[in-house]
């Protein structure tokens, strides 16, 4: 399930609609401190189905919505979409003959959430199950290494390390 595109609007520091085409090979993201690079990682984790704001450096989910800046006021909604190539067929029957699968997660200031697969409303669980099938999900702790976290596998207790290997099995 190759990742084709990441789109964000209103998510953390990404006020305006932003798109990143993800090609084959190595994609490198650079920029000064605090410009938004790790926020892109948070956006991916969130769209995949992260359920705790703490995993995204927030206290509450509302902190994920653009909070305003010196020159702009806060926004009312955050939205992230991941578009993937449907090359595994391991998707809900309804989408089996779609060439691409676009997952969208949306959050409003009043706490209301929306989830879509190719424009159709689904539940958070459907999104999580889609990704579990493809091998990227909360279980695969080794496929997303957040800033500052690389040391964990070395400093972990032997039992914790075993769990990581077990979950990859």
């Amino acid at each position, binding site marked *: 399930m190759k990742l084709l595109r990441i789109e964000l609007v209103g998510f953390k520091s990404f006020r305006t609609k932003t798109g990143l085409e993800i090609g084959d*090979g190595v994609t490198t993201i650079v920029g000064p401190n605090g410009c938004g690079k790790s926020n892109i990682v948070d956006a991916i984790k969130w769209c995949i189905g992260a359920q705790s704001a703490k995993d995204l450096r927030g206290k509450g989910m509302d902190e994920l919505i653009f909070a*305003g800046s010196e020159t702009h006021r806060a926004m009312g909604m955050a939205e992230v979409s991941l578009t993937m190539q449907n090359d595994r067929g391991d998707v809900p029957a309804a989408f089996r003959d779609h060439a691409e699968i676009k997952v969208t997660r949306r959050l409003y200031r009043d706490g209301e959430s929306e989830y879509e697969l190719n424009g159709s409303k689904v539940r958070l669980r459907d999104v999580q199950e889609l990704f579990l099938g493809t091998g990227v999900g909360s279980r695969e702790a080794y496929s997303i290494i957040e800033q500052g976290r690389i040391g964990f596998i070395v400093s972990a207790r032997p039992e914790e390390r075993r769990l990581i290997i077990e979950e990859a*099995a």
Partner: protein
Amino acid sequence: SRELFDETFKVVDAEFQRIFPQLFRGGRARLELTDPENLLETGVDIIAQPPGKRLQNMNLLSGGEKALTAVSLIFAIFRMRPTPFCILDEVDAPLDEANESRFAEAVRQMSQLSQMLVITHKRRTMEAADTLYGVTMEEPGVSKVVGVRLGNTPV
């Protein structure tokens, strides 16, 4: 199950033994079960020996050596069970230039299996990219993505 873990462990261990000397330009490392008699509950230890050094308790390793050992193990698990993409956020922060180059090369090798998304401040890691995105905040507090450089892969 007991067999599944045993099988998984052996593959990860083999990959780890292969990748570590590539990143360290020598030396050796392996995984060890803390309780080989009890496959259902055993923990996993890391035994790592950078080139030219005596084998010692892992905690004595330097910041850069620990990071490179961690990367070796993460990559070993990844090769055992690749996911469609792998994201690494500034894992190269403590590396010196020589290790940074070997890390960048290892990332390129890994990218044959999966899409690698790497955030970095380091030049050599940047140079390993097929696609380069720059993120800026010209307007304070507002992120903007600019400057896509395409290497070998058309976008």
